[in-house]
């Protein structure tokens, strides 16, 4: 701001929180998150990964796990390709008190400046066979993705079999700077009645 030279990159600033989650049959869980962005993206400020506290469901409150974990991250880039994604993994306790994976989820950050309430649906890998699901239940090590960034990949997903259940709610505010100097239009500032849900 106030520079006389042309900007060499544009910036996006994301603030918000990982609000809560609802997962069937899970009353105690924590969440690990990670931001994944393309090669042209550079982190300016904020933490790219973190772990929330371990939350427990309150008595009588509909099974909601509340984390209220702050997200604050700034990226700069020269190319909109590789837009950052938020990858989360929720771990809970099984009946023997061991940490087991409850679900993964992944979502691109919105590309349009504004305020969003987003829902990320969780999925976890299925065991390859009945025997494996029994041994993983006994040993407390259900099937997990070896690479925690795997849900953000576009390739190699066709060989995975998963089951879904539960969701995580995230609130995000997105700001962009200097996108118009690069000729980018992200759609913010347009008439809101022309946007929102489009059914085709």
């Amino acid at each position: 701001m106030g520079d006389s030279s042309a900007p060499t990159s544009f910036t996006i600033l994301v603030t918000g929180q990982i609000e809560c989650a609802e997962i069937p049959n899970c009353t105690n869980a924590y969440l690990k998150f990670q931001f994944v962005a393309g090669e042209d993206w550079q982190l300016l400020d904020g933490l790219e990964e973190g772990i929330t506290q371990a939350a427990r469901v309150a008595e009588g409150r509909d099974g909601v796990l509340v984390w209220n974990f702050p997200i604050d991250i700034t990226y700069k880039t020269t190319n909109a390709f590789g837009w950052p994604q938020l990858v989360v993994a929720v771990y809970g306790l099984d009946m023997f008190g061991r940490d087991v994976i409850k679900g993964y989820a992944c979502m691109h950050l919105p590309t349009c400046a504004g305020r969003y309430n987003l829902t990320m649906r969780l999925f976890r890998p299925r065991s390859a066979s009945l025997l494996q699901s029994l041994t993983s239940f006994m040993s407390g090590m259900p099937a997990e993705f070896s690479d925690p960034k795997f849900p953000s990949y576009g390739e190699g997903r066709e060989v995975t079999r998963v089951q879904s259940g539960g969701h995580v709610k995230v609130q995000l505010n997105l700001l962009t700077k200097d996108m118009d100097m690069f000729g980018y239009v992200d759609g913010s500032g347009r008439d809101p009645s022309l946007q929102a849900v489009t059914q085709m």
Partner: protein
Amino acid sequence: MAELHVVGQILGGIGFPSQNLFCKWGAVAGRSWELLEGIDSGQTQTDLADDGEPVVWAHPLDLHYACRGLAGWPKLYFQVWSQDVHGRTDICGYGFCHVPTAPGQYELECPTWIPEGTVGERIAAFFLGGNPRLKYEEVVYTPGDRFRLNTVASGLVQLQVGIVVKDFERNHVRFG
């Protein structure tokens, strides 16, 4: 030269006859469009969802097109397949939708359909599996004669996409 970014994900599907589904997807654009970066076709994970819940694919989309002419605006097409307990796959829906032509954040629901066979074929498919499939898959996204095709409606594919454009306004294109 203008550029288009499609950033988002194929969220999942809802309303299909099976709850164990995967989706083969692709993006196709006209001759004056060039895919600079990104993967333009693929297959999602196979998800098993509870009854009544949407099937979750969460497959990321990140496409970067260069545009020399507006004709042939990119389209996304889908083939939803189900997998039964024996590991056989069967077609569950064909559908397509255009990438929105204005920048912004969208939640899209793309309706799908499957070809319908004769009564005899439907009875056989009920017991043995094997829904009729399209021989020429371009029929899904190209406007052409479909009058010989009988189809029945299937579920919806849900997408969340953000569109970012570059230099379209400099070329006097208005989005509305």
